[in-house]
């Protein structure tokens, strides 16, 4: 080591580190350059705004009943009309949307985290760890999720929706986990993981520092798409009365109610259905654009 090299090292410790554009910024850049990414993001942001800020502008809350207007079409007084009970459709729809969005987001987050950990451990350690974890994954795949959730629905009484989120997540993670496991096996063979291993880094630290971060693109995309499947599952369950319990409302309960009166009172059905479809569509668009942004080589999003 010469003197000049010493000086260089000295300089480095003193000077601030100049950062090259980070991966996050690159991905975000690609994401916002794609049309579908922009549209999806804008629509989704709008939906969130509507769900959480919209009620502030409405004179009605979702529990209010207007006993002067039963099943009335949209008007200046009730923007989306009223239900048979006299509830304001705009107010209940936004309330249902809040619930669905929150349930969907949380369930997706929990399930993806679960999938990441289980899959990464199974794929990294293989052997008995893998056998046990894979068996549990298979078992949950084999159990009809809808049925289990439906049976457990009495537990999701009023105010118990966090439990519902956990249960929903419990039936969403298996497929992702299998994919993560497969990728973890291949990441494990990658030389940078081998390098860490031969350096003496403990396995659990390798998993959290090298394996899972390197699957993050898959995980982020999957979490996004899980949001939409969580919303859809929640809707179906609630439709049959197995999900969110009254007096709380969600997309599912509203669609169930609305479909009964849809023929002669279309506003009870189409507003909810429309918002649901637009929300899920936006989430899917964001997920797809993210996938392309993370993996430019797939070229599916290239123009």
């Amino acid at each position, binding site marked *: *080591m010469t003197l000049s*090299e*010493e000086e*260089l*090292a*000295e*300089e*480095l*410790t003193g*000077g601030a*580190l*100049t*950062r*090259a554009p*980070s*991966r996050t910024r690159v991905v975000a850049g690609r994401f916002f350059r794609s049309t579908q990414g922009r549209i999806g993001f804008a629509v989704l942001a709008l939906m969130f705004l509507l769900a959480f800020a919209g009620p502030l502008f409405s004179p009605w809350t979702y529990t209010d009943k207007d006993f002067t207007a039963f099943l009335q079409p949209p008007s200046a007084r009730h923007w989306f009309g009223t239900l048979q009970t006299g509830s304001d459709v705009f107010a209940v729809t936004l309330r249902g949307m809040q619930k669905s969005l929150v349930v969907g987001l949380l369930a997706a987050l929990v399930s993806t985290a679960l999938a990441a950990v289980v899959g990464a451990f199974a794929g990294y350690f293989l052997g008995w760890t893998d056998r046990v974890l894979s068996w549990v994954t298979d078992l949950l795949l084999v159990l009809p999720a809808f049925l289990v959730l439906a049976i457990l629905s009495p537990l999701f009484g009023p105010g118990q929706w966090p439990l519902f989120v956990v249960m929903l997540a419990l039936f969403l993670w298996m497929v992702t986990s299998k994919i993560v496991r497969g990728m973890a096996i291949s990441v494990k063979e*990658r*030389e*940078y993981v*081998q*390098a*860490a291993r*031969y*350096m*003496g*880094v403990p396995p659990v630290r390798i998993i959290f520092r*090298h394996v899972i*971060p*390197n699957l*993050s693109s898959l995980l982020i995309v999957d979490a996004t798409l899980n949001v939409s499947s969580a919303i859809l599952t929640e809707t179906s369950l609630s439709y049959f009365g197995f999900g969110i319990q009254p007096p709380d409302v969600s997309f599912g309960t509203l669609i169930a109610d609305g479909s009964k009166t849809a023929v002669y009172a279309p506003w009870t059905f189409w507003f909810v259905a429309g918002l649901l479809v637009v929300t899920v569509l936006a989430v899917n668009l964001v997920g797809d654009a993210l996938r392309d942004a993370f993996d430019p080589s797939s070229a599916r999003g290239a123009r």
Partner: protein
Amino acid sequence: MSPVLEVSDLNVSFGDVRAVRGVSYSVSPGEVLGIVGESGSGKSVTSAAVMGLLPPGARVTGSVRLHGRELIGAPERALNSFRGRSMSMVFQDPLSALTPVYRVGDQIAEAVRVHQRVSKETALIKAVELLDLVGIPHPSERALAFPHEFSGGMRQRVVIAMAIANDPDVIICDEPTTALDVTVQAQVLEVLKRAQAKTGAAIIMITHDLGVVAGFADRVLVMYAGRPVEVGPVDDIYYRMRMPYTVGLLGSIPRVDRDGRQPLVPIDGNPPSPAALPPGCPFAPRCPMRIDACEESEPPLFEVGEEHGAACIRWQEVGPRPPGRHAAPGEGVHLRVRGERTVLDVRNLVKDYPLFKGAVFKRRVGTVHAVAGVSFDLRQGETLGLVGESGSGKTTTLTEILELAAPQEGGIVVLGHDTARLTRSERREIRRDMQVVFQDPLASLDPRMPVHDILAEPLRTHGGGDPRRRIGELLALVGLDPSHAARYPQDFSGGQRQRIGIARALALEPRLLVLDEPVSALDVSIQAGVINLLDSLRTRLGLSYLFVAHDLAVVRHIADRVAVMYLGRIAEIGQVDTVYNAPGHPYTQALLSAIPLPDPARERSRERILLEGDLPSPANPPTGCRFRTRCPKFRAELTDDERRLCVAVEPEVRALGDDQGAACHYADRREVV
């Protein structure tokens, strides 16, 4: 003779990126044109453009004439009738060039039937004949096999059979042997020569390997940054080159036929990106002979001799071996006296793997004897080169050492500790003193970490305070700018990434460095710089290297001793120059003789020892000597009595002389390079 294929002023661009810029050449029947260039030089795009097989979005201008008929802009139907009939192609990767779901016979027959009105049966018979011609044993049975049932070399033969199915006039070979082992490469080149003799076609041979071209081509075109920079008869290019880039390329190749340790002359810097070409001569920033005029305009191809052109304004001053600007510190000859202390001792190492078959119905069908009794030792300050082709067990040996676990059989002693009796803390200690450098510089660096974190990881794992100062030292040590610590691996070129990998390995000041093919993923001009770096680091830091490689020339250049592996055993081991000058084992002889030299005159006069067939399956190795099934000596020189010993008894490594041993009953030292 009129040329069959004439390419003039061919330009290809993808969007704003000009991948090929003004390529012109022509080939006559029976002639072999070699197109040489490093990755990104545009050589493969050129051939895809000639075939009309560029991906949509590529813009092609210029002219490609086949028998005088223009192909650029010709209707698709006309192109289809040329492809495969007048002009065919052999691709680089034989593993993916064949459709996995069809039998190879059917795939060749399809090539026949596209252009000839014959019945299915006739086409199949023709396919079997072609398979026979390219040297596939039992062609009529093998025609019914699927591609995945062939080895890489055999698949490449199938692709060649397909290419010559309709007696083409031009065969374009795009790196046809790059993915193959060197003995298989020799076989495939032989097949190509045979195919050419049969069809009388012109061959365009695209490669990065100056050795392959030397013995095979009549004329050579050197490409750089999408342009031809030198073109001429093969001897002119190798002996009377007029372009500094060609000089640099030839100077940076480690030679298997040169002993002593002459430092390689790497080319400074990196090839330019086609998207951001420097003004003027694209080679100027790397050129040792650059003058200001070089940056003014891009030089045309000057006529520098008969049929010899070079794109350099100073061509008159250029000649073979100019004084190198970047000569590494000379080390003199290889160590003759071995060190005292043993840092690594491997004794009778054995490793078996279960062999599974089927992806869906996975079932065990046997045992792969990947390593079957390997012994060697490595002394302080020494470099041992472990060479072998794929399937030789060199990687398994390496993994067994790195795992630091008790081997299945035999023993491994690393830095004085037997791996079978290691405590946790001893293992940790050894992990600190033994580090590894991997083959693929990109894959071995976590893409999500900046260089700073990558280099800090070993330091943090093994304690120690603020790593920042040490990181600066390390980067400087491997010749990188310490201010680049905040960058991510993808911001570096291949050679720089490998330097980062080396810096990481050196972070803890290890005593033993295990190098797994550290330069094989790099271009020649870059490779030389990394080899020189490794060489000087070893002397400066007193390291010992276990250097695993398939490239015998690189090993000769860097190693003190060499161990040649074949099918899980050591065939020959000894001091590098002794082994290379006079190998005793027939396999070493064949291996060395298969390596093409970047020296046309010597290539033409060389007698190759060709091995027959494929490597036997390590799950079912031959009895006695493992090499006997392919051994030229066993086949041609030995008497039946002598052969009996080869069949019955597995030979152990026996000393042939001063530090040279071969595992052959009838070892006989012989000069082959």
